[in-house]
């Protein structure tokens, strides 16, 4: 699914939007380690906030953002426009 969608995102010039569930996030901080452009620490727990979307033109950031979503040990992150 991921690969197919990448193509669609590329073709249509869409942006990727990430969502975070703050009830699930406990502040591992792995997302802002991997993609600091998109995720930043937001509170005393080190929970993340999402500061921007990623455009299909940003191949490297797109890849890292996907890795950040896949790498969340709590499963607190999801790609919003990829269902």
């Amino acid at each position, binding site marked *: 699914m991921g690969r197919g969608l990448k193509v669609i995102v590329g073709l249509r010039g869409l942006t990727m939007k990430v969502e975070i569930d703050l009830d699930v996030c406990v502040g591992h901080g792995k997302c802002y380690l991997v993609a600091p452009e998109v995720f930043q*620490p937001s509170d005393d727990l080190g929970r993340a906030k999402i500061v921007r979307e990623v455009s299909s033109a940003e191949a490297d950031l797109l890849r890292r953002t996907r890795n950040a979503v896949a790498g969340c040990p709590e499963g607190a992150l999801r790609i919003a426009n990829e269902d």
Partner: protein
Amino acid sequence: MSETTIAASISNSQSLFTHFNHIDPPIGRDGTPNEFYEALRDEMVEANRPVGWSEAHGGFWMVAGYPETLEVMHNTDAFSNDAVTFPRYETTEPLMLAGQDDPAHKRARLLVNEPFSPGRVMDFTRILRESVNALIDGFIQHGRADVAKIIGDPVPAILTALILGLPAEHGPRFFKWTWAMSHEFFTDPDSAAPKLKEMYAYFEEVIEERRRNPGADVLSRVVQAKIDGDYLNHEELIGFCTVLLLGGIDNTSKLISTSLWRLAWDIELRHRLTRDRKIIPLAVDEFLRYYSPASVGRLVKEDVSVAGVPMKRGQYVMLMAPIANRDPRVFPYPDTFIADRSPNKHLGLGAAIHRCLGAHVLRVESRIVLEEFLTRIPEFELDRTRTPKWTAGQLGGMGSVPIVFKPGERLSQGPPNDGVRTWLEHAMAYA
């Protein structure tokens, strides 16, 4: 247990889980327990058995699979942190934070989250860089050093002192007490006891002092805090001091020492990190996955089953991070060290409500040590006349890493600060 006996016990079709003692795991050819962890993991995969039973320490469940470990960490209804250290560290006060369950844990944690948040931790980067360089200045002209003793041990002790608002020159004492709590008590309780007594007396004095002259440090914050309208009692305050000391020093010193040990012989990795500084933060997380120092225990609060294995109330459970972090269901090429592995959802720092409070501290600490060390001493190797030593225990990692290198020049001609000076004297006494 040697490599041949590992193989022998498999061929006897006896489970490797049966006599597994997490306090003293068998050391393999590489000098770490990883070979044994990988053999256990292989057994888990082949027998499809992510949970096993060990007869050691009166018997306990060993959870080796990744999803199962995460499940136990999240199920705080059935699993209590009352047995986070197993066998228990001999402290008379309650183990605050790590040893507590919600709601008490949550109240305690809320008190100390802020000073350990990513933003606040960055305040310490300058002094960390200075301290690391001053420590390196202490031995760079000699061309040899035990970098576990002179980098891995001091850096976390110095930083923990700074965060707690304690004099950094007391670092060697903090390290000694941490050692007494986490290791010595099990091997030589008679020699650990007076050290713990000394530690309690020290913290009693600190607490009194903070009551009279509160500052902006963590301990002042804890001393002045009220939980549900009450100040923390004496045991709780002492408990905070000891847990912050344990959490701040022991794990991180092992992580840093093990990382430097790996870099001493893994030339390709060392050159890659030297060439491409950007991946150092990812490499720190891979060190955490590959050489996770900490494994944590749980006490079963109510009958529950994990991966179809029924566990009874009152039984003990060990969550083995280094094994879960090698679960092929989650990590491709789990036995390969991949410096820029991503995603890397390792459990080296735990998960759920008890995820390591100092996660952001130790990342910054490890990153700065690696950056500065590789800048000052880009080429080094293990000293063949001596042997690196793995320190086993509930927290495992390299305890001695003798290296040799081409002598270099000091960076600063002036005397080091007091924190660094006492460590240099302390480490030289062991050299």
